[in-house]
């Protein structure tokens, strides 16, 4: 579980997150919804200590973030940012970097590290792509390679900032299914999505943000059908019962 208490974040003295209180339950998929620029990514970066000015408290499980070193944090939480470099390295090397938090000086990988990397590559179906350069892969395959890196990191929590962006519909579903598998493995998954239908289908817990604050939180249906969401986005999602459960769509 990750808990944020009265969190304020600033960039160069300008406050962008104003007193966020929320909780991401253990072993569940939590989704953050909200319009562009409302502080979603900044909140996730604050959990990873990737923003310079943070006030308030962040708890990783029952541990205070202030008491954790950056490597301790990386052993507990894996993070895939929204925009990523495409470094000139092989897939297996990228996944190997997932073991970086476990390396001590002078940086020698152990058998255990190679085992975890091979398992992660197998899990995302990229075993045969280990020697391929990352830049030679498609967008979907690259996303899988980064997921494998997060898997190799072997953390209890995985945070993904808009992981479905730039993916075709098949790869979007595949990524969301893998997120479900992560949560079935007992891992806490936190991600930012913009699609209400995917959120309704995959999220166990939803946090709605607007103007740097939490506007509402709860089950996917409760948040997506809330008046706060209508006011924030200026749209009213419609729900219908399908063969496989509840669905929603948004009228133009």
């Amino acid at each position, binding site marked *: 579980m990750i808990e944020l208490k009265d969190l304020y974040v600033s960039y160069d003295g300008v406050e962008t997150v104003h007193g966020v209180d929320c909780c991401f339950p253990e072993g569940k998929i939590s989704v953050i919804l909200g319009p562009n620029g409302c502080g979603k990514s900044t909140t996730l970066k604050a959990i990873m200590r990737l923003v310079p000015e943070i006030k308030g408290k962040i708890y990783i499980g029952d541990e205070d973030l202030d008491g954790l070193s950056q490597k301790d944090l990386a052993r507990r939480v894996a993070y895939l940012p929204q925009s990523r*470099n495409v*470094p000139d*390295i092989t897939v297996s090397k990228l996944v190997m970097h997932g073991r*970086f938090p476990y390396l001590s000086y002078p940086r020698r990988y152990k058998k255990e590290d190679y085992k975890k990397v091979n398992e992660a590559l197998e899990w995302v179906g990229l075993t045969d792509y280990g020697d391929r350069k990352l830049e030679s892969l498609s967008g979907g395959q690259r996303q899988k390679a980064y997921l494998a890196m997060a898997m190799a990191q072997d953390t209890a929590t995985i945070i993904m900032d808009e992981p479905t962006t730039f993916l075709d519909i098949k790869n979007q579903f595949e990524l969301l299914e893998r997120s479900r598998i992560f949560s079935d493995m007992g891992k806490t998954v936190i991600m930012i999505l913009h699609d209400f239908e995917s959120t309704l289908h995959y999220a166990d817990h939803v946090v709605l943000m607007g103007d740097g604050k939490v506007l509402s939180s709860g089950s996917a249906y409760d948040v997506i059908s809330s008046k706060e969401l209508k006011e924030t986005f200026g749209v009213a999602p419609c729900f219908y019962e399908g063969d496989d459960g509840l669905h929603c769509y948004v009228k133009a």
Partner: protein
Amino acid sequence: MKTIPTDKRKKLYILAAAVFMLLSAVLNLCMGASGLTLRELWEALTGGPSGTVAGRILWYVRFPRTFACLLAGSALAVSGAVIQKVLANQLASPSIIGVNAGAGLAVTACCAMGIYHAWAIAGFSFAGAMIATFMVVIAGRKSGASRTTVILGGVAVSACLNAMTEAIKTLVPNAATASQDFRVGGFSSVDQARLLPASVLIIGGILVVLTLANDLDVLSLGDDTAGALGLKVSLFRNCMLTLAALLAGSSVSFAGILGFVGLIVPHISRSIVGNDCSELIPFSIFFGAGFVSVCDLISRLIFSPYELPTGILMSFLGGPFFIWLLLNKKEHSK
């Protein structure tokens, strides 16, 4: 269990670079205004410095000079590779981002103040290199830290520092004479006293960089990904730039300003062994050392018995290579 394949071919390339370095060192020891056969070389090696004329040439002239070539080449190559990786800019190098100009200014100022002690010159050179590095990095960050702004910042800082160097040389003519070797770059006036402090700093610095090669690769994933993997990004970047300044500054302290080595060698190395620092750094060490050693040999032999400063030969090679690099990049982008 399937293991991750390792590229043995790249390890062979590193071995070949090491052989190239050794061969160039042996040639540098044997060839010159007074040539030594392999037999004479062996006798001089076993007889010590007090034996034959060949022995004195070898121990007092050729050994320090060859060692200086190897040290300067490896230091500048590693410094260039580190700067390019840390700034994520393949056009960055110690000379282009102002490191050499900073060290050159510091050494000129040192001479102007009448300080000629080897450790002091090495210390001033290092400090000058480091200050120049951070001036460029800070200027780049303040203006958006794009690849272009770092290069332009480096050009501006270099121009400013070079102007200051020229001003000192005009006002203190003795400094101009004393720092002549530094401005053109070369190994004709290398001696053991100057080499000792620099060699400690260079060998120590290279060893640290070698152990942190993996961290350099993690940094190239981007600040957010690297930070999320547990790397203290700002601290690490500053430490690596300090190390790069230490290596380049130490090299300048005895070899003067050798332009383009820090640019050419990492580029050639990258095209042979790739961008992975666990291979790029070792290859650059050996190839850089061999490259400078060969350039020094050519500069000594091409107009023998006269000697062309190695720095001039480097610039002759480096200038066209840099233009080729720009043209090649343009071709790739089409």
